[in-house]
């Protein structure tokens, strides 16, 4: 048997999908066109998202860490996802939990930091990176060479939370192909595109986050119409409600309990919740106290306010999408908490139909992520499946009086960009203070603050004379960057929005290098491998383009492109990353105008509403459109 397991160095790298969950995480990949979850050596696919930091410096992840949590409640971080991209003073940080937070001192970024065994301090990004490393190792055992990862995030995650997730993945040494919204991933896993069209809702109640997404399926395209949710609502809150109930029954003050008791109570509460999905009553016994029982009906009363909160988000999402429950063809359930019977009943009432739950709600997101990873990083698969996602919360700028001017409204399809122009309020103002916020509220103070920066060096002018142009760009990961330019002087500033409690790029790079044993050497090898993969992809794409759109080639163009392709192939035989890089660029130059003509043909066909296979070749039309789009690219703001 061992013969079959010999590593084939020519085997293509395999892209993976990762669900980095609040309670459990898992990794999946596509084998023979079907997504499968990867099991560990105990044949378990779910890795509990629990990390224990031991006094001897050992880091333990998963089931063994769960066992350590009782004994080391402060050193074992559970549900770290709730702290991603959060500040130390956020309400979320101060809820019932056993942790020892390091207070932020003056002048330091307001980051959540846990103090664990041996005085070690870790951030949520580092804890998440430890979980991702475990998943990565698990995938490497199975697949040997990984070809990049799609990591899922709750659709309702704001920019700071997304950025933190991406940082964690980079820190774990993963090549992030995409951050993908969890509900969209679930829809993809259902493979609805193969047989269905219509409007669907995805109801995703995870351990710590709630998402609802309304999407339209049309001929292989998943178009998200609206999304909503609550990034601080999930199964954990049900546990906490039970724990508070137990404390109240015993007449204990929640604020004055030991970390050990709090951890124990939360674990008991979770066990009781699981029991109550199959039984109508459970017994609870706190050591040294009286026994008492919790009936399912009582539990349902306790969680009913939580369900009502999901209902508000669902109704809002339907309103934003312009649909009513009757318009929906189906509702998909995602997340472990949707196993609770009261949740299923609530969802059925809300959407007026029985929800679909035939794929394991705890695996469905990772399976969908694997499908997307295969579409993005797979070799030569030309699928007609496409995801069109949106930003979950409006993005804006604080203007006079602390009011928000929305630059990009929520539910804008990504990638997207928008511009807005502002002016000075005072005479001789030489700087603009720019405050970028995310959220729906009218006042900046009530929204999430993403970044503050100052554009300086503006010459003295009377109020209202300066013209500040702000450009917002949101990429396909849903991440924002902001560009500011003063139009009368041309002073510019480009800002990647990095919240003050995130990690900056140099910190991530440094931590990454420290994590690698042979930093320099590994990086060189990796760079060469990455360039080779890219070269082979581009060569394949170029060959295909020459074949499919041969009629768009101008005289002599084909020979030039073929020559540049040949030189790139030759460069790949020499093990030199920079040489490959320069040949890639040369081929890029040689194909530039041809590529432009191909794209214009694609646009022309799309506008005519015809699919590629049903279209006659319309070279003239393609060239006419070129002019219109060139004009569009140079417009003023």
């Amino acid at each position, binding site marked *: 048997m061992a013969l079959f397991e010999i590593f084939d160095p020519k085997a293509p790298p395999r892209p993976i999908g990762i669900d980095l969950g609040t309670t459990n995480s898992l990794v999946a990949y596509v084998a023979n066109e079907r997504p499968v979850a990867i099991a560990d050596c105990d044949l378990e696919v779910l890795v509990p998202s629990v990390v224990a930091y031991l006094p001897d410096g050992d880091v333990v992840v998963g089931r063994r860490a769960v066992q350590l949590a009782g004994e080391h409640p402060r050193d074992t971080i559970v549900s770290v996802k709730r702290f991603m991209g959060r500040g130390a003073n956020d309400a979320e940080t101060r809820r019932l939990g056993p942790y020892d937070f390091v207070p932020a001192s003056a002048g330091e970024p307001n980051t959540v930091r846990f103090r664990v065994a041996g005085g070690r301090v870790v951030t949520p990004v580092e804890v998440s990176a430890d979980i991702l490393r475990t998943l990565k190792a698990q995938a490497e055992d199975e697949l040997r060479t990984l070809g990049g990862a799609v990591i899922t995030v709750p659709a309702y995650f704001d920019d700071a939370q997304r950025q933190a997730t991406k940082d964690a993945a980079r820190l774990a040494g993963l090549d992030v192909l995409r951050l993908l919204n969890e509900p969209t991933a679930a829809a993809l896993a259902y493979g609805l595109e193969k047989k269905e069209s219509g409007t669907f809702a995805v109801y995703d109640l995870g351990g710590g986050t709630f998402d609802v997404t309304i999407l339209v399926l049309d001929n292989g395209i998943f178009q998200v119409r609206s999304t909503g949710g609550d990034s601080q609502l999930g199964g954990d809150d049900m546990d906490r409600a039970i724990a508070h109930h137990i404390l109240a029954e015993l007449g204990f003050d929640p604020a004055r309990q030991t970390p050990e008791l709090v951890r124990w109570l939360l674990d008991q509460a979770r066990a009781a919740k699981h029991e109550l999905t199959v039984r109508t009553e459970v017994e609870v016994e706190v050591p040294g106290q009286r026994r008492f029982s919790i009936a399912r009906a009582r539990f349902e009363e306790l969680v009913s306010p939580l369900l009502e909160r999901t209902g508000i988000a669902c109704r809002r999402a339907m309103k934003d999408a312009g649909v009513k429950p009757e318009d929906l063809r189906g509702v998909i359930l995602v997340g472990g908490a949707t196993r609770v019977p009261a949740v299923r009943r609530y969802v059925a009432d809300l959407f007026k139909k029985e929800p679909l739950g035939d794929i394991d709600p705890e695996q469905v997101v990772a399976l969908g992520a694997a499908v997307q990873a295969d579409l993005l990083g797979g070799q030569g698969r030309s699928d007609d499946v496409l995801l*069109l996602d949106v930003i979950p919360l409006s993005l804006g700028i604080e203007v006079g009086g602390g009011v928000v001017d929305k630059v990009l409204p929520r539910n804008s399809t990504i*990638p*997207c960009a928008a511009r807005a122009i502002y002016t000075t309020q005072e005479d001789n103002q030489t700087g603009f203070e720019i405050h970028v916020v995310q959220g729906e509220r009218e006042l900046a103070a009530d929204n999430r603050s993403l970044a503050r920066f100052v554009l300086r060096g503006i010459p003295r002018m009377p109020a209202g004379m300066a013209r500040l142009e702000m450009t917002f760009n949101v990429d396909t990961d849903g991440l924002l960057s902001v560009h500011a330019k003063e139009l009368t002087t041309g002073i510019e500033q480009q800002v990647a929005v990095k919240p003050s409690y995130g990690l900056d790029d140099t910190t991530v790079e440094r931590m990454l290098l420290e994590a690698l044993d042979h930093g320099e050497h590994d990086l060189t090898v990796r760079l060469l491998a990455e360039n080779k993969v890219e070269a082979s992809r*581009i060569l394949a794409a170029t060959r295909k383009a020459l074949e499919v759109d041969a009629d768009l080639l101008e005289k002599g163009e084909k020979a030039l492109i073929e020559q540049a392709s040949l030189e790139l192939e030759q460069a790949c035989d020499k093990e030199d990353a920079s040489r490959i890089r320069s040949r890639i660029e040369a081929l*890029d130059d040689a194909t530039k105008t041809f*590529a432009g003509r191909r794209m214009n043909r694609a646009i022309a066909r799309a506008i005519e*509403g015809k699919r590629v296979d049903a279209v006659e070749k319309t070279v003239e039309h393609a060239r006419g459109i070129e002019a219109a*789009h060139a004009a569009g690219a140079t417009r003023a703001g």
Partner: protein
Amino acid sequence: MDPFSTLGIARSYDVDLAALEKTHRELSRALHPDRYVGASASERRSALAKAVDVNEAWRIVRDPIRRAEVLLALSGVLVAEDRDPKADPDFLLEMMEQREALSSARQARDLAAVHRLAQAIRARSDETERELSLEFARGSSESLLPRLGELRFYRRFLDEVSTIEDELAA
């Protein structure tokens, strides 16, 4: 930019939104960055820029206010909220009354009253859109600006309703 030409549709205030959504999807199929993962850097850049333009055009055209603004701008009328002519005093007075009624309903936590007020404003907003459409059919000019101003009032009112609904439901 002319979002109508980006989307390949006629420049008009009357837009078939269902057909437009379909066109947007087909353009996305042709231009979305995911379609170009294996392509050369310049092709990826140019596809991305065009996908962004298409999404922006779609965002503008499906929004009745921004659609009106861009139609006016394309025919040379200066449009900016702070340059709009002063609204009719009677209209302003009435809007102030409506806003006060909304604020009382909010304080009384009277969701039914909030819905009633919202419904009335929504009906007027729809009516104003119809009038705009008729006027645009006769040509774009500065005389349309007051209507546009009214639409903006209604939009802000309905945004506030949305906030209040969430607040009262919680």
